[in-house]
């Protein structure tokens, strides 16, 4: 009996884990190209640089992509403040951008697909 109860519990936990995800990372690339939502900034020459991992520890680019996707539909960009607070001082006066970019593994380069948000300074 206890085995059955535990099996039901495992089933419940597993269900909780998989089904609430509307656009879970693992399944979103069935229809998308290798695209990711990420944060960048513009330098004086107008060139866009995407923030490196570990600049905003413990958040990573994976975090950014997940938060961006989660809040994209509601156009809620409050979360970018949390990123900005974690960046080093030299990034504080820069205009942050949220872009959807496509990764080209052959060139190890990114192509801009869509501009989502630009911060106003």
């Amino acid at each position, binding site marked *: 009996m206890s*085995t059955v109860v535990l*099996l039901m519990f495992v089933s419940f936990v*597993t269900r909780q884990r998989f089904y609430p995800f509307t656009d879970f990372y693992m399944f979103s690339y069935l229809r998308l*190209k290798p695209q990711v939502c990420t944060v960048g900034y513009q330098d004086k020459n107008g060139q866009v640089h995407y923030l490196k*991992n570990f600049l905003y520890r413990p958040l990573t680019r994976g975090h950014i992509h997940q938060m961006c996707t989660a809040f994209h539909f509601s156009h809620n960009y409050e979360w970018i403040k949390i990123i900005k607070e974690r960046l080093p001082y030299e990034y504080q006066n820069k205009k942050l951008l949220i872009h959807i970019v496509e*990764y080209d593994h052959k060139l190890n380069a990114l192509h801009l697909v869509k501009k989502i948000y630009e911060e106003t300074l």
Partner: protein
Amino acid sequence: MKKLFNLIKTQDHESQFAHTGLRFFTYITLILILPDAQRFIEYIDINRIPHCGYFVSYGLPFKLTITTVHFFYWALMVAAFFSAIGFLFRISAFVTFISFSVLILHTLSSCFSNHQYYPLGLILLFWLINGTTGSQYIFRFLKIYFCLAFLFAGMSKLLKSGMSWITTDSLFNMISLQNFLHQGFAKQIDYYWLNQMILNQPVLTNILALLTILIEIGAPIAIAVNRYKWICIALIGMMQLGIQLIMYIEFEPWIIIYYVWVFSAVDFLLKDKFETLSIKNFFLRK
């Protein structure tokens, strides 16, 4: 169902030696694989995000502070050590489970899924419910859980995407994108060539997707068919190692769910030699 249950039962011997060994290695590994307290403290700020409902359906109903993170972290460490050596096991296993759950839910509340720690919570719960010495079920529970964890992973892929998981470029896109998401991490630098080798042959990604589904759906073979048990477990292990090498996804903590097979096998091999093998006899025998 009863036949299946009896089959699993006949595979289990679970002497005190194997039971103690499995318990010791499970809790000691837990201590070793957990990140340091500072890592949990770093998540306190991120928890200010109002909701992360799209990705995480559960989280803590309260916020942790630096002091409470330290409290739960050290409670977990001490209790896990006591559990490993079997000192006040019921209480220490309870404290381990609760403090582990609090810390993991705390990090889960930050819009990030800690997939590498998912299976551990339930394993700690199994030990709490049925982990006392003399229990006859912990090996069985852990084996069933091992199979279900992979079976549900395979089923969710099929239910959510059907054959598209195999026929589309889904896996290719993910393997490709991992290079950007993990850029600058040590693992990505170490195994980059393997990732590139797979990406240069896109058809390989479709084959790997098919193999992943087959291996995950076939996980119950490990408990249902004794003859092919080791092949099945080896394939699952190789699959996880492959994911780590190609996609840089961490799976180290999952080693805990493999221990049950190792100790079960050791127990089986030693059974004929030491029928009444126990830790006490093991050290005291002349």
